[in-house]
């Protein structure tokens, strides 16, 4: 089995771990980091498939994913800053103003 197939399996496991962290953690910054972990897992699968199919478009797309992740991290951090200032807590169970 070529090396890149192992990399796709690793990407699936990393994505699963990121999803676990996204669902079960309560600190909003850790949830954000789980999202970044999922994005990294997807990047790995892009690179692995680019290697398997010998098409360079996979790596081009990883560029765009990294750029979008950077933009999202910047805006997300600004939002977290405002939320932390207003609610004085980083626990998502305290940030439930929209709940009934």
């Amino acid at each position: 089995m070529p090396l890149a197939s192992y990399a796709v399996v690793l990407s699936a496991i990393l994505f699963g771990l990121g999803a676990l962290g996204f669902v079960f953690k309560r600190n909003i910054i850790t949830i954000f980091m789980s999202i970044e972990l999922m994005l990294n897992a997807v990047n790995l699968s892009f690179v692995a498939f680019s290697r398997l199919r010998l098409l360079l478009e996979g790596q081009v797309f990883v560029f765009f994913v990294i750029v979008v992740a950077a933009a999202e991290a910047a805006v997300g951090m600004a939002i977290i800053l405002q939320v932390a200032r207003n609610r004085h807590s980083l626990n998502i169970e305290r940030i439930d103003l929209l709940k009934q």
Partner: protein
Amino acid sequence: MSVETILFFVLAAAALGGAANLIVQTHPIHSALSLIVVMVALAGIYLLLGAELLAAVQIIVYAGAIMVLFVFIIMLLNAGKEERTSISRAATWLGLPFAVVLTAVLGWRIAMAQPGPMAPGGEIPGTTRVLSQLLFTSYVFPFEMTSILILVAILGAVVLAKRDF
């Protein structure tokens, strides 16, 4: 067992250990450092898969800028350990096994799949030159769009983080 395979399994173990540590640790700064370990391990795997420019970009941009931003925010907000609250019963008894089964099925299917038809050409050409040629000829429109996206993100972050709204 070639050197490449051994190296891949070492880096994969590091990535999996970092990811597991991210969700196990209670203090967000430990999770951030574990995520940096994952990103560096992934950069090594990109090198093994022949994506040199991407490995460099991953280290410089992802581990070197985005994770530094995360660490700044954690230290700025003085984030502490998570408190102990109870997770709902349905989440643990239904969700956790389902997540494990989902990952196992996904991994098994991927491992058993036959690789699709390979594009003709044989070996991957020298990546950095061809990659930048692709990026600036066929994909120049998304490239310019992402620079506008970053501009919008900068403006949004500046406006959103103002103290007096």
